[in-house]
């Protein structure tokens, strides 16, 4: 057990009496996978871990956990957040979906998380991992008794390679020292730029090929912390009937466009949608592009300031403005 895990545990122990449940990460079915932990007993706090395999954005569980919480007790919910997760949490607070005083936030500065798919491609035989550490431009993996180094681009998740906010923006307790961001605040998104450079026809073909694979499992929606209408999602309603059960590319694409439109100015680029996609569609790119547009038009980034209002939920009343 390393120092960080110990501090996380101690931080929660101090306030555990006020908390109804603690959301953190614990080890999953093997040493490569970490899984979300819902801790209700103080003795279980030992299970909490933090390492580069803690990829899940826990703020996605917050909305439903708060809804299911005992309304009489009004207990707080403890939650661990990385930099990107804290933006999702801020966005939820902004929209009044989560009350700030009902959460106890433990912020953890993060150097990036591992993309399990990338790692599996690199080392298909990986079984016992004893530790993954992230240095400036290398990932050190200790596995099966050996130590190996890989360039970060080969192992880290897509979102981490262009991470602007590695430090939590909102927290009650901070674990460890803040880290420096990997890219500048106004740095471009390489994948989006690459697509933008193509011709209109090539872009259309790209999305047609990608969307053709979609199996409409809706995992991207279910993993998204900002897709809060889940049970009454318009993709599944009969009235209005936006989508049919046909497996046509246009129907699949329409579903992704619904998400893009609904997340315009709200998406915090936590990358959960792309991580959970079983057929590897780069769904995040749609939101990233929309975020670039929102930044350009309204000079706004989602999940930064809990007091501000998402730009598409307000307006500018001047005659010539947008």
């Amino acid at each position, binding site marked *: 057990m390393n120092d960080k895990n110990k501090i996380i545990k101690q931080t929660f122990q101090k306030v555990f009496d006020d908390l109804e449940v603690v959301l953190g990460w614990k080890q999953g079915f093997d040493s490569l996978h970490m899984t979300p932990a819902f801790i209700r007993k103080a003795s279980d706090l030992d299970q909490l871990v933090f390492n580069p395999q803690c990829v899940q954005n826990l703020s996605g569980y917050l909305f439903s956990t708060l809804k299911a919480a005992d309304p009489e007790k009004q207990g707080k919910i403890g939650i661990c957040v990385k930099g990107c997760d804290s933006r999702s949490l801020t966005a939820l607070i902004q929209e009044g979906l989560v009350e700030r005083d009902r959460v106890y936030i433990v912020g953890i500065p993060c150097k990036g998380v591992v993309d399990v798919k990338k790692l599996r491609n690199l080392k298909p035989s990986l079984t016992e991992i004893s530790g993954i550490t992230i240095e400036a431009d290398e990932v050190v993996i200790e596995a099966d008794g050996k130590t190996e180094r890989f360039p970060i681009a080969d192992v880290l998740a897509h979102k981490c390679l262009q991470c602007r906010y590695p430090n939590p923006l909102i927290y009650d307790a901070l674990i460890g020292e803040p880290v420096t961001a990997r890219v500048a605040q106004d740095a471009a998104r390489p994948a989006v730029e690459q697509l933008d450079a193509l011709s209109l026809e*090539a*872009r259309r073909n790209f999305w047609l*090929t990608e969307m053709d694979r979609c199996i409409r499992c809706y995992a991207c929606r279910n993993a998204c912390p900002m897709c809060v209408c889940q049970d009454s999602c318009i993709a599944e309603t009969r009235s209005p009937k*936006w989508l049919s059960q046909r497996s046509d590319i246009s129907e699949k694409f329409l579903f992704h466009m619904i998400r893009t439109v609904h997340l*315009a*100015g709200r998406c915090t680029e936590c990358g959960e949608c792309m991580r959970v996609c079983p057929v590897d569609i780069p769904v995040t790119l749609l939101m990233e592009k929309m975020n670039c547009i*929102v930044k350009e*038009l*309204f000079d706004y980034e989602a999940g930064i300031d809990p007091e501000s209002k998402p730009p598409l939920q307000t307006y500018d009343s001047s005659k010539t403005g947008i």
Partner: protein
Amino acid sequence: MKKYLMENLQQNSTEEQKIRIIGFLCNWCSYGGADTAGVCRFKQPTDLRIIRIPCTGRMDPMFAIKALINGADGVLVSGCHPNDCHYSVGNFYARRRMEALKRFLPFVGIDTQRFHYTWVSASEGQVWQQVVTEFTEKIHQLGPNPGFHINPDIQQPLSLAL
């Protein structure tokens, strides 16, 4: 279904000028403006099919997207001028959504010229005639919209810096 759509699309590309444009017009201004243009007997192109909406604030960007993905050749949205909205602020919300959508469309391979939003008041019959004529001409230049139905036979999928 797919076969039918393919045939339909092929027909479109061979038959000259079979163009479908969808117009979403606000009940209070632009629909009245189009009516005025009709009453004044201004000559207008006939490719536009008008859908009356209560306010451009009701204009869900998905309406435009669904039409364009399913093969409409152009989408025109028209409402009251800013500050003249019947519901005070409906068109202010609409303006933001429409502008964001307009800039987004090229990213998925839809020509941004196929989508246009504008403001026309109920008395501006002449302006309406001009708007609709210009937009229709532009769409005719662009030709039919291929839509999002046919799977392209891509030899080598694109790999991005992800």
